[in-house]
């Protein structure tokens, strides 16, 4: 399995190196967005950086883009490879397609993370504003990406059955944005289950409490526990649904385009 992970990693890396213009344009977008956030942040704070707030915005933005990437990658891989005529070969791997897609997603996230950190540092160097991001912020970040991967399997399932997934992806992004904006953490009674079970909800509550109240990772009530439960739950749901979708596509005989 390690060999498969390395293979995914190398494949991504080679493609990045081979097509540097695509890489550069992607990087340029990230740099511009971060630069804008920095400038905007310092402007709003009247020149004196509101250190905490700005780093929250940056961390939030980085997490959002990484999660969206995790949600979209697997579906995109499937539709792209179905068109290119390599999908069936991927599905013939003895490890199974679910695992291969997971490894591919991991390779993507690591590369995305590297770029984000890289641009963050260069933007900090350019603007002269330095942010402190605690390494503990990585934990909710990883939980968020785990949930996102579960949702990614759902998108992949829709893609493999319907051969397109853009509408579903848009809808999903809209719902997630709503869940992130809405203060679900304050809901009481039966609604509290929504705050725990809805994708991203508990981890956003955790992040919010860490950022705005400056609470430590383990000091934010039960939100850390619920975030772990939530991430595992959505990962499992995603895996189960994808397993079912695969079976269905194999029964229909239309794994690749027919």
């Amino acid at each position, binding site marked *: *399995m390690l*060999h*498969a992970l*390395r*293979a*995914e990693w*190398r*494949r991504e890396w*080679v*493609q990045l190196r*081979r*097509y540097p213009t695509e890489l550069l344009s992607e990087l340029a977008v990230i740099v511009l967005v971060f630069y804008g956030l920095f400038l905007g942040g310092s402007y709003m704070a009247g020149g004196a950086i509101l250190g905490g707030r700005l780093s929250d915005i940056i961390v939030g933005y980085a997490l959002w883009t990484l999660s969206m990437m995790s949600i979209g990658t697997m579906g995109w891989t499937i539709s792209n490879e179905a068109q*290119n*005529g*390599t999908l*069936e*070969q*991927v*599905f*013939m*791997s*003895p*490890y*199974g397609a679910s695992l*291969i897609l997971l490894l591919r997603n991991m390779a993507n996230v690591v590369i995305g993370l590297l770029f984000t950190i890289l641009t963050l540092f260069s933007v900090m160097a350019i603007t002269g504003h330095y942010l402190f991001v605690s390494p503990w912020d990585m934990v909710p970040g990883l939980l968020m990406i785990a949930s996102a991967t579960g949702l990614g399997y759902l998108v992949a399932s829709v893609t493999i059955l319907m051969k397109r997934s853009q509408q579903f992806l848009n809808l999903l992004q809209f719902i997630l944005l709503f869940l992130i904006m809405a203060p679900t953490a304050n809901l009481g009674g039966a609604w509290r289950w929504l705050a725990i079970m809805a994708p991203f909800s508990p981890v956003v509550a955790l992040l919010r409490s860490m950022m705005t109240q400056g609470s430590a990772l383990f000091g934010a009530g039960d939100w850390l526990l619920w975030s772990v439960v939530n991430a595992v739950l959505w990962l499992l749901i995603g895996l189960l649904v994808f397993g079912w979708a695969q*079976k269905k596509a*194999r*029964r*229909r*005989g239309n*794994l*690749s385009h027919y």
Partner: protein
Amino acid sequence: MLLEVGGLVKRYKTKDRQIVEAVRGIRFTLSAGTILAFLGPNGAGKTTTIKMIAGLVRPDDGDVTVEGHSLSGRSGQALRHLGAVLEGSRNLYWRLTPLENFEYWGGIRGLSRKTARDHGRELMREFGLEDKIGSTVQQLSRGMQQQVAICAALIHSPSLLLLDEPTLGLDLDASDRIQDYVLRLAHERGVGILLTTHQMEVAQTLADRISIIQSGVLTLEGFKEDVLARFTGSSYVFELAEAPSAEARILADNLGAAWTSECEFRVVLDRPTDVYEIMRALEPCSVVRVMRETADLATVFREHTRKSVSMESVREVTA
């Protein structure tokens, strides 16, 4: 036994909710070192069968085992022993070089980078493509791409290779190279190969065994020599003095004539005396020469499918 295919059945539902019975109870076995040519008209169910063996299409009934591992159980074990080049697919990443493709496809089959690279180099050398190892697949000719795809399918040294129309659309040189390689792979290294093709000369060169599938049913199965021998001695070539009239041509067609030119056709006759019947049918056009010849696979295929199709239509009429 390397490959055992037992009672495979596949019904597809089309978009307009009709049922297509693509494969209706196919069973056969394939042993190591044997090349089985899977022949049949368009839509007969060849690709469906191959994809069921590769685990890409789920059969409605029946099972496949590869090296004793069932595909419906823990399919991983069966898939480890199997490589496939699928019809009309690229089977490769075009943006990567052959070597990078081998690393990837080897990696997701559990090979280390070094093993995949070394084996990939060796395979490319056997095809005489070692100098192409560093160009992207996109830059290679179609024939080379197909050869690289075969190398990639062999990267994990499978004992069973599935080839769906491997020489389709290739020039003579590329086709010959692939055929040479397939022969060596089976007869020197003991790989079992199941291939489909519409090119009868390819099947005739390569096959140890022949299977003909029609409308999802195997209608003929056997060693190539036996299959050819069934028709040998009953195949005739007629050469005519001039092109016959349209009516005479139709009469000859009804007797199964396959025209090779305006004035020449090949026909399989059940009894030698039928030669006279054909000559009568062609009158007043005169026959210059009648040759009895050994049957080739194309003739066998044409004859066999013509007969079993007419049998089938008879069955439909009487039913």
